[in-house]
């Protein structure tokens, strides 16, 4: 059973990673805690659902959801963050305006779904299983893992090997200096929010497919998990978020299997608390890049 739980954990963990990645990208670059990320995630699942319902193939639905939720994420940036960027109050103000944006998105989701829990039609994805000794894989799990790996590699490449990635990092370091050097900050904001939203959108579809439930409140639990992942991995650290997401997934599965399930939450948050105290930069964060840790 332990092997099976490990497999399950890696798959759910990879989806956590995908969700948390967009969250940490925005935090790492702009120091914004974007609570509307939950709403963007939900939008992705909704777009995918309605695309499939209207007869589009799943791969196309996935692409549409990526683009759609990427754009929605950028709209959130325009409506909630761009408006307060000049005020010097963005750290706190962003909390309020992103809660506002999230309320708007949830309200739209509620209307579209008529408050019902939606699910993809049964034939959307072939239900097939492969057995390797004691371990069962579903075709869906394989595909999820594959999509996540491809997306992560594409993102790493984009962030660390292209000039866009350097521009993002330049703006995150110092917007004024960056624009003096010829970087267009508007474009950088667009790209960062778009990528972050697109990743959340894919995560939304994946969750909708594997757990059969798409509804307007689906983002909230993942937001809390994203906090955990992002801190464990080191705030703003991309590969940290990936590894931490996997670890959280595995830990959660093992905890359900071997511990009283009512205590899972206590243990996860206890762990988070301890990690923060022992190594505030996260399990994989380097001390150098940190913001605001223990100045003594």
């Amino acid at each position, binding site marked *: 059973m332990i092997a099976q*739980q490990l497999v399950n954990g890696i798959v759910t963990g990879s989806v956590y990673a995908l969700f948390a990645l967009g969250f940490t990208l925005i935090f790492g670059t702009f120091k914004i805690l974007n609570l509307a990320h939950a709403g963007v995630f939900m939008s992705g699942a909704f777009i995918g659902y309605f695309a499939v319902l209207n007869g589009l193939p799943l791969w196309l639905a996935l692409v549409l959801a990526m683009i759609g939720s990427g754009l929605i994420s950028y709209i959130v940036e325009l409506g909630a963050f761009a408006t307060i960027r000049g005020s010097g109050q963005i750290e706190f103000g962003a909390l309020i305006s992103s809660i506002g944006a999230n309320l708007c998105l949830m309200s739209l989701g509620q209307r579209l779904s*008529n408050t019902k*829990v939606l699910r993809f039609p049964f034939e959307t994805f072939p*239900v097939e299983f492969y057995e390797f000794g004691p371990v069962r894989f579903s075709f869906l799990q394989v595909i999820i893992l594959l999509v996540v790996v491809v997306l992560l590699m594409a993102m790493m490449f984009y962030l660390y090997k292209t000039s866009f990635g350097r521009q993002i990092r330049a703006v995150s370091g110092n917007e004024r200096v960056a624009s003096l050097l010829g970087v267009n900050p508007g474009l950088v904001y667009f790209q960062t929010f778009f990528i972050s939203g697109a990743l959340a959108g894919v995560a939304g579809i994946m969750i909708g497919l594997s757990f059969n439930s798409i509804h307007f409140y689906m983002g*909230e*639990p993942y937001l809390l998990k994203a906090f955990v992942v992002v801190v464990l991995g080191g705030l703003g650290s991309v590969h940290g978020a990936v590894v931490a997401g996997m670890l959280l997934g595995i830990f959660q599965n093992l905890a359900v299997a071997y511990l009283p399930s009512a205590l899972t939450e206590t243990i996860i948050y206890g762990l988070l608390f301890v990690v923060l105290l022992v190594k505030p930069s996260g399990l994989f964060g380097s001390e150098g890049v940190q913001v605001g840790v223990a100045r003594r």
Partner: protein
Amino acid sequence: MRGISKLRGLLLAGAVLGSFPVAAAEYTIASVKALTGPLAFVGVPEANAVKMAVDELNASNYLGAGNSIKLVSNDDQNDRAQITTLLTRAAKVDNALIVLGGANSVLMIAVAPLLNDLQIPMISTAQTAAPLAASKWYLKVTASSELQVAPLAQYAIDKIKPQRLAAIWGRDNDGHINNMKAFMGPLAAKGFKPIAEETILISDTDFGALSTKIAAAKPDAVWLGANAAQAANLVIQLKQAGVSSNVVLFGTAGLGVDYLKVGGKAVENTYFSIDYNDQSTNPMNVRFAQNYQKRFNTPPDNWAAVGYSETMIAARAIKDSMPNPTREKVLDAIMKMKGADVVLGGGKWTQKADRIPEYGPAVMVVRNNKPVPAQ
């Protein structure tokens, strides 16, 4: 605007005199339900059905020619402060005769004592029976867990005899906890001890780990303590994790139509007592289903049926306390109500001395994605 305030003044004057004008009177029912927020999936279909029921009743001059029911429907956002405010408003400003309350057990327990101060009856959806003790003004539409689950437990003991029974229930909802106790208690007493007991949260959707664990225990029966869509999702994931397709499933009335829709083929062999049977051929049920479909472009679910039924009960109570209905009379009428027409269970709603009503929910089983009476 002036017209409204004049009307309000008139109503206030009516209340002060202790009675309403006899000719062409309006009798107010207040609906306080969660139309936004996490419980909107219950509140919205309920509120829709309430609106429909009031329109139908008024169109048929239910309260006699010239008289009508006025519906004041408000959204409580599943929020304590708003429920308290809206109840106070229903009692003191709208002069409602009765309130149709919400589904959140914890909030209903919290506001029940307030009804004593406001002296207004409230009939609510929430599963819990706890608020009954806090106020004589609190009433329930649906039967209690014990009442609904007892026949199911008896059926399981007599007919299914599960040897490897697993139980899964939502630990953050007292309805699920009570249902589970009402089911597992009698079975354990007869020697059918559970081989696995697991809890979930009502917001959970990922049951991968849990399913794997349950599958490893190889159950022949599973108790599902979850709401419709979540229970269906749980069953699908259990079967994907390798739980036998012959497994017998047990659940409560909360499952309803959405369970079948979301669960598809996976939920065959589910035994449950049912509040609302969408296959019923009872004329009132057929008419309700058709009208609801026509008006809201979606078939009614369990909650719509509950909302429709509670409106019928409230309206009948007002009618029974004519002329000059007061809140006391309305409460009294519900306490004495026998065989009121509803779309729940067998179609006749009867109040009992312990204020836990009865409407003959039957044990059903899912065959070919339809609930049929269990033999």
